[in-house]
């Protein structure tokens, strides 16, 4: 939750601002010998505190403390409290009003931002759902169709027709399995508060698991590997990262026409591990690069849209990487072909995502 941390931070912030205001006032008093600026400086401090802390508490606390400070140090009698004079009480009231108004405003503003973010999230989820249901219907239709053909005409169909239909059913079912895995992983990382079950995962073991799986599906496609020599362990949710690498490799197989080489590289730079999946196929059309990770294909791509999970696959990748605190990018290589790159932090700073 992090509320405790937040409270400590807010408290420290308030104390720092008030001490700062106090010090500035002392300096000004020394320089100009006038007291006219003092309340203004404190009002400024109270506003700062109200703006940058959560809720009303710290703003109001700051205003009360400011009143006490002014009363104690800068009004007659100096360096002593005089809490019952009407001047002091009215100053306190003004400060309180400033604090509560500012706090109200900032709280409202923060609320609005959250509502906006939520609406955006909701819209993306809706888009994704629409795309997914459309994508799911196609293989389901063909599975259902193939099965009913076989059931209705079992004796009329020659053996090889049966085999062909069954192979199609099998392929469609496998596609569905991968799709559902992607969707499941989205529900894991697409929440308001993401809590990943990170485990230290050895880079080599991750690559190994991905390659074993990849070879099972695409035995004819070789992948050229380049890994750091030393032992590298990265905190991550291994299943999800496996899915990311699988998606990127699979995308290359399905979409990089004319591909001869497929590379999977990983290297360490500073506190980050970089992963690269590159191919020397046809590359990505420039106009699609900016919207590649947002979850939707442009609607005018019927060519291979029937079985392309590319849009969803990539938005899943992006969501998973984001939840891990990293970033994924795509570009075309100058030599031709596409290049996907993402990085992860090596040491877990374990920030709580709000």
């Amino acid at each position: 939750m992090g509320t405790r941390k937040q409270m400590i931070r807010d408290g420290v912030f308030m104390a720092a601002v008030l001490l700062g205001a106090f010090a500035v006032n002392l300096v000004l008093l020394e320089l100009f010998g006038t007291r006219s600026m003092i309340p203004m400086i404190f009002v400024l401090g109270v506003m700062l505190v109200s703006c940058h802390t959560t809720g009303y508490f710290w703003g109001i606390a700051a205003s009360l403390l400011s009143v006490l400070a002014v009363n104690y140090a800068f009004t007659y009698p100096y360096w002593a409290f005089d809490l019952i004079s009407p001047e002091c009480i009215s100053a306190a009231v003004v400060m309180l009003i400033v604090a509560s108004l500012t706090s109200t405003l900032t709280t409202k503003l923060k609320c609005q931002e959250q509502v906006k973010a939520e609406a955006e999230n909701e819209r993306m989820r809706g888009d994704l759902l629409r795309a997914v249901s459309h994508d799911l219907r196609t293989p389901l239709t063909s599975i259902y169709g193939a099965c009913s053909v076989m059931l209705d005409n079992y004796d009329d169909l020659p053996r090889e027709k049966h085999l062909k239909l069954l192979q199609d059913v099998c392929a469609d079912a496998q596609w569905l399995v991968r799709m559902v895995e992607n969707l499941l992983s989205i529900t894991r990382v697409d929440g308001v508060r993401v809590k990943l079950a990170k485990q230290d995962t050895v880079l080599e073991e991750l690559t190994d698991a991905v390659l074993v799986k990849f070879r099972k599906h695409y035995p004819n496609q070789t992948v050229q590997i380049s890994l750091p020599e030393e032992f590298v362990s990265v905190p991550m949710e291994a299943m999800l990262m496996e899915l990311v690498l699988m998606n990127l490799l699979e995308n290359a197989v399905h979409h990089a026409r004319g591909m001869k080489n497929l590379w999977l590289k990983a290297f360490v730079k500073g506190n980050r591990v970089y992963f690269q999946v590159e191919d020397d196929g046809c590359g990505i059309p420039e106009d699609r690069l900016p919207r590649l990770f947002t979850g939707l294909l442009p609607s005018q791509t019927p060519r291979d849209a029937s079985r392309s999970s590319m849009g969803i696959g990539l938005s899943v990748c992006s969501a998973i990487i984001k939840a891990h605190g990293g970033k994924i990018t795509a570009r075309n290589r100058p030599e031709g072909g596409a290049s996907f790159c993402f990085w992860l932090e090596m040491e877990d700073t374990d920030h709580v995502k709000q």
Partner: protein
Amino acid sequence: MSNNKYKILIVEDDRNIASFVQMIFETNGYQVLTAEQCRQGLLMFTSHMPDLVLLDLGLPDMDGEVFIRRVRAESAVPIIVLSARSDESDKVSSLDSGANDYITKPFGTAELLARVRAALRTNRSSLRAAALDGCFRVDDLCINYDRRQVTIAGEPVHLTQTEYNILALLSQHTGKVMTYSSIIREIWGAMDNGNVKKLQVNMANIRKKLGCRPGDNRYVTNELGVGYRMLDE
């Protein structure tokens, strides 16, 4: 002759899955018993004494782990767990409570049969090691338990004490997934978090010395987030 078949008990509540799994095994020469619930499964287990149990973890009437412990209390019969994806902790805890292996749904015929064969063989692997002059062999890897020596295609591999111990431990449970914690318990005794890293570093060294490349591990496979498994075929 017909009574020589291996007997497999399938505990699975989904009829479609149970029926196709049953079909797979029957066409491959196994005898199959099915139970839809844990209690029924336990009854059938005690009355039929199957050679292997295939258990679905998400059964309505009882926790799958309780089932595993009850069976383990009276028998060392191999148990293979069918688990849905995304619950890694389930895998680890069922392995730790005594299951031999797990298969994630959905699975293919070939994979299922291979795992079952491996599990059935595991039960005899200690015999196998003894029969072959005290050596364990997989592919071109050979572990000589008496001389504590490992060779690949006849060439000796120089392992440290700990590395040898880990490899020997895995080979004694060949075909079975050993969880990180169970390996650590056997090798170092205590269980603390830093040890998983120690184990991973040791495994990285073992792989390097055995000449394994990623995606091409012929002897020991990684089960990400769960543990390691010595291959046996």
